């Protein structure tokens, strides 16, 4: 595999091969396949890590160390009966999980996942095709991603409202409240780094932090980083903010009536979103990827760190109550984010 180095925007532009439609297709398929697989693998990792933190073994029986558990789970999900409740709005009920999964993957289109490469010539038909790191290198990448993730709100919302189930309805209400509220915090918190970099493109963010750990935006915008992380947990419906399907309160929230692969799609969407948030956090605050020899490994480790953090937090921390969630968002995080933006602006002006 050819490793292309990105020293700067200039060299990047000079060296960039032509992005063909075929390349984008291939990239899209890769994203779909790999992220789906990683999402599946994520469930395995999550179960394992949680188990270890509770001094358990986690899945052990399917494959060595339970590695094939995801396959077993997959088989199970695919073969389970697809139940649609009698009084549900059937079309919306069936479409809702697709929305969740689709928006999660669409968001990934504008995120740099894996380095770019050219398919070796000896492979027939697609040989020589250049596969870019970003499927769609939009110059408003961050905005697109945030927008898509916000649109993902429709998945749980519609699912909860369509299934004619009180737990689902409460789950849907919580979805609307939680996602919309924390969208504000996400947006405001990332606004400050955007102001500093002056671009919405991930490539620009990456370039702005090149040159070592000292250049990482996290040092310039620690408050924004923390706010973004907190909001990210909320956006991805993770502990301590997993109120949408908090089983102790609302059974399974919006997913109460779902079974089989439809339920699985919510799951994949959630894990895809976790990866997306991890990638954004890594690229925006932790210096992104480096074109140097082991740069791809570093970005992997950074993403993995954020993913791990989510699991770790789940193992350690309890849930918050819905009212605490709202209180935190509107009375604490949002003001801080605004103040952070203002201070950033003042500092930049000065």
């Amino acid at each position, binding site marked *: 595999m050819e490793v292309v180095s990105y020293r700067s925007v200039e060299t990047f532009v000079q060296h960039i091969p032509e992005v063909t439609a075929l390349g984008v297709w291939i990239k899209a398929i890769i994203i779909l396949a790999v992220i789906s697989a990683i999402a599946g693998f994520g469930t395995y990792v999550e179960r394992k890590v949680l*188990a*270890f*933190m*509770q*001094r358990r073994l986690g899945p052990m029986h399917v494959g060595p160390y339970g590695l094939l558990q995801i396959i077993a789970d997959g088989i199970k999900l695919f073969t389970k009966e697809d139940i649609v409740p009698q009084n549900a709005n059937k079309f919306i009920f069936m479409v809702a999980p697709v929305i969740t999964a689709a928006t999660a993957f669409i968001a990934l289109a504008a995120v740099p996942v894996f380095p770019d490469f050219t398919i070796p010539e000896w492979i027939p038909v697609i040989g020589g095709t250049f596969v870019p790191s970003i499927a769609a290198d939009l110059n408003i990448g961050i905005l697109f991603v945030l927008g898509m993730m916000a649109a993902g709100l429709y998945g749980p919302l519609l699912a909860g409202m369509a299934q004619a189930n009180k737990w689902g309805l409460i789950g849907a209400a919580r979805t609307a409240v939680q996602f919309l509220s924390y969208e504000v915090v996400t947006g405001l918190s990332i606004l400050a780094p955007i102001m500093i970099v002056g671009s919405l493109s991930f490539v620009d963010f990456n370039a702005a932090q090149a040159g070592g750990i000292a250049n990482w935006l996290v040092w310039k915008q620690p408050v924004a980083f923390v706010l973004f992380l907190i909001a990210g947990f909320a956006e991805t419906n993770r502990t301590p903010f997993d109120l949408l399907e908090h089983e102790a309160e609302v059974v399974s929230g919006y997913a109460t009536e779902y079974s089989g692969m439809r339920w699985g799609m919510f799951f994949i969407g959630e894990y895809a979103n976790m990866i997306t948030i991890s990638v954004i956090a890594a690229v925006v605050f932790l210096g992104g990827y480096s074109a140097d020899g082991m740069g791809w490994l570093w970005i992997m480790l950074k993403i993995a760190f954020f993913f791990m953090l989510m699991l*770790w937090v789940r193992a*350690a*921390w309890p849930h918050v109550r819905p009212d605490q969630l709202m209180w935190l968002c509107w009375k604490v995080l949002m003001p801080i984010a605004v103040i952070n933006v203002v201070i950033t602006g003042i500092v930049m002006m000065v």
Partner: protein
Amino acid sequence: MGLEQFKNRNVGQQEYVMLDLEHTPQSPIGKFKQVVKRTFKPELFVGLGVTMREMINALFRGQMHTIKYPFEKLPISPRYRAIHEMLRLLESGHYRCIGCGLCEKICISNCITMDTRYDENQRKEVSEYTINFGRCIFCGYCAEVCPELAIVHGQRYETASEQRASFSLFEDMLTPIDKLNLQQEYDGFGAVTPNADENIKKTPLAY
């Protein structure tokens, strides 16, 4: 103790530790102080630290708690009362049961029955012995009353089966003759106490 007294009794009053908890602040400034205090106190990170420490303990210090149950089993207390076993004499291999019927008599759920007969060696022989495990409550009286330590509670606590009767015959409970060397002495109900010798008076013998 009467019922009323029983209900009103003080259970372990002395062992309660009263926590000096702060009251929830009412004033806005108080609430703000609490938020600041909680925000900058690293309690959340203590939680993270604990879980991480446990993970490291589990993975690298061999403190994993999981027992892979069907393959591994925890040792159970000798006083545990699982499915009964009928033991044999170690010297001769003959079963210990003498058919005295005490277990049958003491059984409070009436689940033990036995048939005895006069055998060719002028001894009492147990011709049939059964325990109805559909009724047995595993109280352990039979093992406790047995004068020969013949019926004991074993360690086999996995008692799910298609037919309960399949556990209940004498042969099922009897130590297989080829596994006599693996027969464990029973320390639970009815076993000889470690200080048994001190508690008995010796009978004089004329030879």
